[in-house]
């Protein structure tokens, strides 16, 4: 099956953005310059209270043998909705093509003001700032949104035996991508992670490319 690109957008490093994706369209996230994490969440375009729940999806994928905290196949919305919002149809990293010991994504938290305070980098831009900017595009304030736990694409982190939060540089190479097929009309909310203090983005923030694809004919 062939696809037409109906939207093609490079989102600059350290910034936030929203993109609308219609049911049946494919949302492609591309590692434009290589090792860079994108923090991703999704809203039901018709009811913003129905949002993607990453950790909850990890649990449901694990119970079905189709993923877990480091790789997802089905993206579910929060209770009481519990709908499949999107399906991963192509994942160059999560399928193990780039080696590594695990899926290579992380269904967990993003960086925030308080986290950078704790780490000794007060005032540094964080994913919270990016998400605040992105949500503003659709008229939402962060008091009314949930982005604390998201799909951290290419974030090669894991939970250690003792509950430690461990990180390594992303496994993704330049132009690797992941495809999400929209199972409902969605708003994708994007933070191109600005972190340069850890291995998460290999110590350098970069741009990412996003495409919306549609089946031909």
């Amino acid at each position, binding site marked *: 099956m062939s696809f037409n690109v109906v939207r093609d957008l490079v989102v600059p490093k350290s910034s936030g953005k929203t993109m609308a994706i219609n049911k049946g369209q494919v949302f492609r996230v591309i590692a434009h310059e290589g090792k860079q994490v994108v923090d991703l969440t999704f809203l039901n375009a018709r009811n913003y209270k129905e949002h993607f729940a990453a950790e909850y999806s990890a649990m449901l994928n694990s119970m079905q043998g189709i993923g877990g905290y480091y790789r997802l196949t089905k993206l579910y919305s929060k209770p009481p909705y519990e709908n499949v919002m999107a399906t991963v149809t192509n994942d160059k990293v999560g399928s193990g093509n780039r080696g590594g010991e695990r*899926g290579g994504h992380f269904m967990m938290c993003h960086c925030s003001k308080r986290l950078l305070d704790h780490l000794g980098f007060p005032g540094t831009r964080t994913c919270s700032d990016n998400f605040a900017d992105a949500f503003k595009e659709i008229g939402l304030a962060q008091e009314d949104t949930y982005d604390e736990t998201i799909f951290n694409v290419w974030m090669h982190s894991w939970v250690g035996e003792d509950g430690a939060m461990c990180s390594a540089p992303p496994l993704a190479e330049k132009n690797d991508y992941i495809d999400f097929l929209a199972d409902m009309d969605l708003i994708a909310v994007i933070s191109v992670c600005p972190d340069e203090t850890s291995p998460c983005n290999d110590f350098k923030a970069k741009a990412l490319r996003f495409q919306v694809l549609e089946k031909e004919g």
Partner: protein
Amino acid sequence: MPVKVIDEFVLPRCSGKAFRINQGQRFRVIEHEGKQVAGLMFFNASNYKEQFMAEFSGGLNYFQPPNLGSVGSHYRLTELYSKVPYENLMLLVTDNKIGNHFLGPHCTKSMMDIQGVPGHRSCSDNFSDALSEYGLELKDVYSPSVFNAFANVRIDTKGDGKVFIGPPCTKSGDYIEFLAEMDVLVAISVCPDDRSAMNDYSCKAIKIQILVSE
């Protein structure tokens, strides 16, 4: 510091309950019969939009000086924080007889479907009952992740990051104690899952005590 019990009650198995704790008060979640998980949600009592964030708190505990992990981790919290943009300290864990707990999703309708028991009661039902007393519903709760006290759940360190559930390592009388750093609304689900090792395949009661410093 000597403390005095000012209220105590037993929550029947498979039930939910919400109650208020004032700043400076403590409360204990006690294993009444042993090997039973209690899911905990917390709200700022004067602004229900300010809610406890489970995984987020795991990160804020782990990445703290002086040494990574000295304050807590994904399985062991000392400090419970609220969501962005608040990021306030809501509660402290002041006594923890067990050690490890699980920051993660509560059980839901879909999980019961996947386990082959559609219609089985889940923590979603318990939380809905508990929250309704305060005019809240599940739609108003941002995160499906809670503080699962006594849950013996682990995430695989490799592969897909699968979730492993073991029976709680608790016996009757074990407890965890929280000190409220603000006025909080607590919602508890006495987990009704008897289909997995979560509650050692049988649902039991949980006891709550509210305490003040003397």
